[in-house]
């Protein structure tokens, strides 16, 4: 077993996903198979190989620190599930 159901539940919590019991069981089996497959990467000796995070040889994409208009409050709130005045409303954050 590459992954147990308990580990799946932990990962689901990290990912903020509330899975049903059925989903937990299915995902455990499927993730187990996939993780077993990706083990094949260990066939390769990658010591000394620099990881590639970015495909193109670029660094430090800067721009001048000049203020430009943003999308504005109304646009920002246009798809809000719940709003009050110029704010997004959410359930209580602090108990």
């Amino acid at each position: 077993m590459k992954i147990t159901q308990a580990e799946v539940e932990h990962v689901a919590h990290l990912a903020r996903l509330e899975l049903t019991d059925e989903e937990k069981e299915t995902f455990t089996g499927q993730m187990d198979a996939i993780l077993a497959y990706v083990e094949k990467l260990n066939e390769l000796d990658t010591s000394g190989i620099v990881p590639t995070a970015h495909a193109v040889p670029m660094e430090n994409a800067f721009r001048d620190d000049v203020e430009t208009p943003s999308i504005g409050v109304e646009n920002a709130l246009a798809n809000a599930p719940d709003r009050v005045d110029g704010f997004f409303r959410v359930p209580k954050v602090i108990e």
Partner: protein
Amino acid sequence: MELFELTIHELHDRLKRKEVSSVEATRSCLDRIEAVEPQVNAFITVTPEEALAAAEAADRRIAVGDMDILTGIPVALKDIFLTRGVRTTCASRILENFVPPYDATSWLKLKERGAVLVGKLNQDEFAMGSSCESSAFGPTRNPWALDRIPGGSSGGSAAAIAAREATATLGTDTGGSIRQPASHCGCVGLKPTYGRVSRYGVIAYASSLDQVGPVARDVADCAAMLGAVAGYDPKDSTSVDLPVPDYGKALAKDLKGVKVGLPREYFIPGLDPDVKKALDEAVDTFRRLGAEFREISLPHTDYAVASYYLIATAEASSNLARYDGVRFGHRAAGAKGLQEMFARSRDEGFGPEVKRRIMLGTYALSSGYYDAYYLKAQRVRTLIMQDFIRAFADVDTILTPVAPTPAFRVGEKTSDPLQMYLSDIFTIPVNLAGTCGISVPAGLSSEGLPIGLQLIGRPFGEETILRAAYAFEQATEWHNHKAQI
């Protein structure tokens, strides 16, 4: 011939000569959409009123001679492109009613040239899939055989072209999602080099792999679309500041002196016999056009799928963290606290494939596993990139199959995600290497299903692969076959 059957170039000629109007061409596409959509389901949203208004505006421009190749042309966009004021769902329930307040740069560029948007196209949810079956809005069907998948994740784009519902489309490609559906639907799809086209306003799946590209009727149309959307964008810090060539000028009918590599790792014994036959015949065609072949090796090919499914899922788990029900998208009703709101909104809004990939990615990045999985996959990515760098010292382009088989049946691979992932073997390495690839029609299977071939180019070598694809296309009849729908 109906107006919806014309390519960009054919329609442009008629518009320029004032033989037809953009309104007529747009109406033709909208009628066609209405006629075939019950069978194809390529669209999530059709925008008839906006389209006709845009067509009228295009006609006014054309009347005063203010036009270029894309003015007045009916186009459709994968529903991953933000279109201001037009619902954009990414084929997910979590964005079912999301209306973007801004336009993707690539769409804005088409809009500014007077292209006419007829609608937003179906796809796998959040671009995660190879069959268009994970859409929350039902699968798209392959117009060549309605019991088959069109490919994915840009399944709607390819199906819309095959069914002649739009003159041209844009898709995105992270692991093959433009090239593979183009292959399955008998049209041309191009994934540009990473950084060639702005990703601003494109809903993110895997930020180091995603690229925007055209899915169109033929190579010349692809070249025109690429030229329209390519270029540096200050709003995308990963876009590259290199001049955009006139891709149309690269198209030539011969390949004298072009060195083509055949990677032995791609021509495996298990390759579908119809795919092998199409590729063998293509090699003969290329030889007749003057190309020289070299056998090459891309030794780390076999590790590409594993590397991809760690890198892409890791990046996706981070990118999809924004769907939390706070500022936009689905929010679960009646949540009593913040954590419950997050967890239930996401569980209700995301489909199973998306959840699976978020879970994999989260695991690969989590404490204790990061080095073994994510970092390891990135080191393997370097090895794969080096394979291509070495190969391109000897050859100008690399010829490969696009998919191991022609389009499979709807439902055939949904119970085994790993089987589905393994079918991306020929397209994934190009995304990992960050370079460009094009899929062009190369044959029909014994069951009459399209088979494409892939030409891979050097980074920013789109001109070479367009040239090779064009020469091949013009020397064969495959682009003249069409789905009987």
